[in-house]
């Protein structure tokens, strides 16, 4: 009887641990896909999708130390003088702790801004927070542009 109780308790614990691990994996997958979707929305000037992903109190700090709000980014998205050929990340890593997730990745930006070409890479970390409405992108920070590869 006692052995059966212990086995039952261990089985419950194993089930609980695997459920937590599975939930974390699910969250990683969701956040990874969301961040990829966000980068694509920036590339395609899709302000509606950006609006849905960004938290209302969102802040982005760029490599030169400037800070931008959600409204700033949505306004920028509607400015079609910026044309992206590339706006995708690689080396994406997602880490999840409860209701918070941090995405780190190397972003490649290539295109033209008011007719002037740009082509550079930078590292960023994006912080996502789980809300009642799902995961939202709450804070982003970018490095300086990386030196061009020789």
């Amino acid at each position: 009887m006692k052995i059966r109780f212990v086995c039952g308790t261990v089985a419950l614990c194993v089930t609980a641990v695997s459920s937590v691990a599975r939930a974390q994996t699910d969250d990683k997958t969701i956040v990874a896909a969301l961040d990829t979707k966000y980068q694509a929305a920036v590339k395609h000037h899709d302000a509606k999708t950006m609006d849905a992903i960004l938290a209302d109190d969102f802040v982005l700090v760029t490599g030169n130390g400037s800070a931008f709000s959600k409204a700033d980014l949505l306004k920028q998205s509607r400015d079609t003088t910026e044309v992206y050929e590339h706006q995708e990340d690689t080396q994406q890593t997602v880490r999840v702790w409860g209701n918070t997730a941090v995405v780190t990745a190397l972003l490649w930006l290539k295109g033209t801004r008011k007719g002037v070409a740009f082509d550079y890479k930078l590292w960023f970390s994006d912080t996502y927070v789980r809300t009642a409405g799902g995961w939202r992108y709450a804070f982003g920070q970018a490095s300086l542009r990386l030196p061009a590869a020789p």
Partner: protein
Amino acid sequence: MAIRVRSGVAATSGGAVTREQEVRTLNEQYIRSILTGDVAWFAVRLAEEFVCIESDGSVLDKSAFLRRTAGDASLVTYNLDEVDVRLYGDVALVRAKGSWTSKAGARGFSRYVDVYVHERNDWKVVSAQVTRPPHL
């Protein structure tokens, strides 16, 4: 309100302490440890999975960060101008802006975001990103 440091976290003179106060104190200790090159503080406070993205885009894990801290106490002052702490359950997000002076007399400012996770009754830093513009 007087804050003293006990076992790495803050406690008010009345005994009660909020998680936000704990994180704010840790943030101040973080800056102090950068200024003094206090590798021991970081060895305890950084999670093993810690990752830092530096302003120049270099990505440092915990051991690389400790090596850099040991050999790079180049700042003499760092004043915290803005600190915003947000708590999401067992996770705290610290966003701050500060102004610094280097040993050579140069001045500048930086912005950073640090992510703290509360595990086993203690806070650990799991992620950091620093932005240090090249010019004022």
